[in-house]
């Protein structure tokens, strides 16, 4: 047995309902190394790590710490084994100081002494080169400082194995540099580190070895020094699978939506969209690819009038003569012009549907304005609900049954079906097939293609590259809020898109990132 292993996971499997998140995954973490866990969205990286940190419990398989089999049933157990995970969403209490957050929940039978704890925090910070003010309140901190608090929190509790879930997603390049320096110091101190990421340049820079997951399956572990980004991309996206999706050639494409130099800034002043320009044509499906959080959501919302635009133009033309700028219009007027959006976020019900209402009620949210009389028109939304139920095979006992109680896939069908029923001229969908089974997914692909044939400009934000390549006519790739390329879906390859997603080819982008 290799005594040099800090963690070994053997044939670990985890399923959520019918979705297999991890299947027979093997992973080995050596002592004193930095291991990158690489994979696309939904490849099961975070699920795997959550099993290590006690948030999920594996269905089958074995976890060994220092060569001994262990059971990790809760985050407390994980701490006991010296495992600390830094999540993407920080678990910190805003009105507490850094020290208060670090000692929260810690029972060490010692006198409660914040001064001594602050000192110890500073010692840890000094040892690894963190910069931290133990008395600073969390709400006064930048994202990077909050991350520092999270890392120190795990070190304070004596973690030997650190898991960082996409730590650089929220950091500036300078902050990333600092983080990497700290990680190298921790490695020198004998700590073992797993970093979840899908940025290839970071993988090459920081890690000793790379473990690759694809669609819940373990692919391979390679030494960073013996590989290159191209090989990693191949492992990450895999060979192209052929999907049988009907894809007619676009007929008479004409510009519907012209976006130029669109820049959007969020509340914290971070650029979410940076100089985005593209044109969506009628009668075609424009795919948008990119790792999660590359600006997909902001882009759709900006077009729909839900996200503030800092600069740039969005012009909608119903034909060559009539063009109108959408910037500054309220969502309702944009909708009336025929631009619709169906966004399927993580919580599915968050945007677009009211959970406690039935299908009919949710149809009415869109239709009640059309009514002329004082009373609501219930008949036509009811008919529409029935129609969607039959055509999309929505499994529901009744059209008035609260949509909150339907399964995720059925909720999505209701949402997409309603948006299509509005007879849009621009249809934007995001993650429309997330969590759906194959048959339902095909129903939705066919619906989108039918819209395209009607002359609608369809914008399809998706996760699965195989689908994007088979369904769309052109693919725009977003990376860090910038357009890293627009390619023809018929001629491009998965590898090309994969590289664009991680910006590997764009030398110029690194400086202004």
């Amino acid at each position, binding site marked *: 047995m290799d005594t040099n292993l800090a963690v070994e996971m053997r044939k670990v499997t985890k399923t959520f309902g019918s979705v297999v998140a991890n299947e027979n995954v093997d992973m080995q973490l050596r002592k004193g190394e930095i291991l990158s866990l690489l994979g696309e969205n939904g490849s099961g990286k975070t699920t795997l790590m959550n099993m290590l940190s006690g948030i999920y419990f594996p269905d089958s398989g074995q976890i060994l710490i220092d060569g001994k089999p262990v059971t990790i049933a809760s985050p407390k157990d994980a701490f006991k084994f010296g495992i600390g995970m830094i999540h993407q969403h920080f678990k*910190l*209490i*805003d*009105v*507490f100081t850094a020290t208060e957050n670090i000692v*929260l*929940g810690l029972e060490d039978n010692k006198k*409660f002494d914040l001064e001594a704890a602050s000192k110890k925090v500073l010692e840890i910070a000094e040892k690894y080169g963190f910069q931290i003010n133990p008395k600073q309140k969390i709400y006064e901190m930048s994202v990077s400082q909050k991350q520092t608090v999270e890392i120190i929190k795990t070190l304070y509790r004596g973690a030997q194995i650190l898991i960082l879930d996409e730590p650089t997603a929220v950091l500036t390049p300078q902050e990333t540099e600092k983080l990497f320096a700290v990680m190298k110091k921790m490695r020198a101190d004998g700590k073992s580190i797993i970093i979840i990421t899908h940025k290839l340049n970071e993988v090459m820079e920081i890690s000793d070895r790379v473990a690759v997951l694809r669609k819940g399956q373990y692919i391979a572990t390679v030494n960073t020094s013996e590989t290159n980004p191209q090989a990693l991309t191949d492992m990450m996206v895999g060979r192209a699978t052929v999907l049988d999706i009907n894809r007619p050639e676009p007929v008479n494409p004409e510009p519907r939506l012209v976006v130029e130099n669109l820049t959007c800034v969020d509340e914290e002043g971070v650029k979410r969209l940076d100089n985005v320009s593209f044109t969506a044509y009628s009668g075609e499906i424009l795919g948008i690819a990119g790792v999660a959080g590359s600006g997909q959501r902001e882009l759709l919302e900006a077009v729909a009038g839900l996200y503030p635009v800092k600069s740039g133009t969005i012009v909608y033309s119903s034909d060559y003569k009539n063009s109108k700028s959408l910037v500054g219009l309220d969502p309702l007027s944009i909708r009336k012009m025929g631009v619709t959006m169906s966004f399927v976020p993580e919580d599915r019900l968050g945007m677009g549907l009211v959970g406690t209402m039935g299908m009919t009620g949710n149809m009415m949210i869109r239709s009640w304005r059309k009514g002329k009389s004082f009373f609501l028109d219930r008949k036509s939304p009811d008919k529409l609900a029935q129609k969607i139920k039959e055509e999309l095979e929505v499994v529901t006992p009744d059209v008035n049954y609260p949509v909150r109680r339907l399964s995720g896939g059925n909720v999505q069908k209701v949402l997409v079906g309603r948006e299509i029923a509005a007879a849009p001229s621009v249809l934007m969908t995001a993650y429309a097939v997330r969590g759906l089974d194959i048959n339902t997914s095909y129903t939705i692909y066919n619906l989108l293609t039918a819209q395209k044939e009607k002359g609608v400009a369809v914008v399809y934000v998706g996760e699965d590259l195989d689908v994007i390549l088979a369904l769309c006519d052109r693919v725009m790739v977003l990376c860090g809020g910038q357009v890293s390329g627009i390619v023809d879906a018929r001629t491009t390859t998965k590898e090309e898109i994969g590289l664009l997603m991680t910006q590997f080819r764009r030398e110029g982008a690194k400086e202004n990132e």
Partner: protein
Amino acid sequence: MSEAMVQILTLFHSGVVYGVIILFGALGEIITEKTGHLNLGVPGIMYLGGISGLMASFFYENNNPDANTAISIILAIVFAFIGSALGGLIYAFLTISLRANQNVTGLALTIFGSGFANFFGGMLNSMSGGVGQISVATASNGFRAYISAIAGNDTKDPLYAIFGYGWLAYVAIALAVILYFVLNKTRVGLSLRAVGEDPATADAAGINVTKYKYFGICIGAGISGMGGLYYTMDYIKGTWANDGTIEALGWLAVALVIFTTWKPLNAIWGAILFGICYWSYLYIPGLDRSSSEIFKMLPYLFTLAVLIVVSLRKKRETQPPAHLGLPYFREER
């Protein structure tokens, strides 16, 4: 001593007496709200505390001609605490375990407490032969004992305005200081505040959120109930009066929690200020019955003013606990 000075002293004295009732209510509610639960049942809990303590002493003293002062007082305090903590337990069970709406549950508890207390108060009245005939003189005198050597009996003496109160008043102030210390300087206090700010984070840090909430709410309710006890035993000298004063003071306690921005030390002077505001109409010349009511609004106006100022300043420390009023499910994200 000038007439005006005497008036100010007597106003201060009666302000403090009402202030103590409000202070107990508010301190309990601060603990409750720090766990993230808005308990609008404070008036009902104060009713429960008042009637439970009164009944305990009443039955003890009526069955023992040579009632012992200490025993009668201890019985009153213990039963007042248990009675109001049970009220808190009902609220805790409904809002924590069954995740009922906190506002509705609290209001229901207020209505229940007031009905319960007035029913048994009426029963005690009829048992003792008529309204105002209830007597728990032993306990009441025990509660009303003050340090007469220093304070004297002269209501015009400034010392009387400081030392001339039943000893529960000083307990209330001490309790405020203790509560400040516990909340800010101990591990338990840190965990309790974490639960009210962000139960998911507290849970992930290994804190037993449900336990903290139950204990916080029940102990908070027990302390609020002491306000009712002080009212029945000290202010109305050990009898029962169903004129709704407890309820009015209970609402003032809820308002005071906001006024103090959830800080126990502020509650001390805030409660006295509220008490003084309550009585100020007696000392302002030329008021008739209707215009005097306007002055009773003063505490609420102060609370509104504080809310406006605090909201404008947007300082995080003066905001309510972030998870106040929201239910917590571990599985829901």
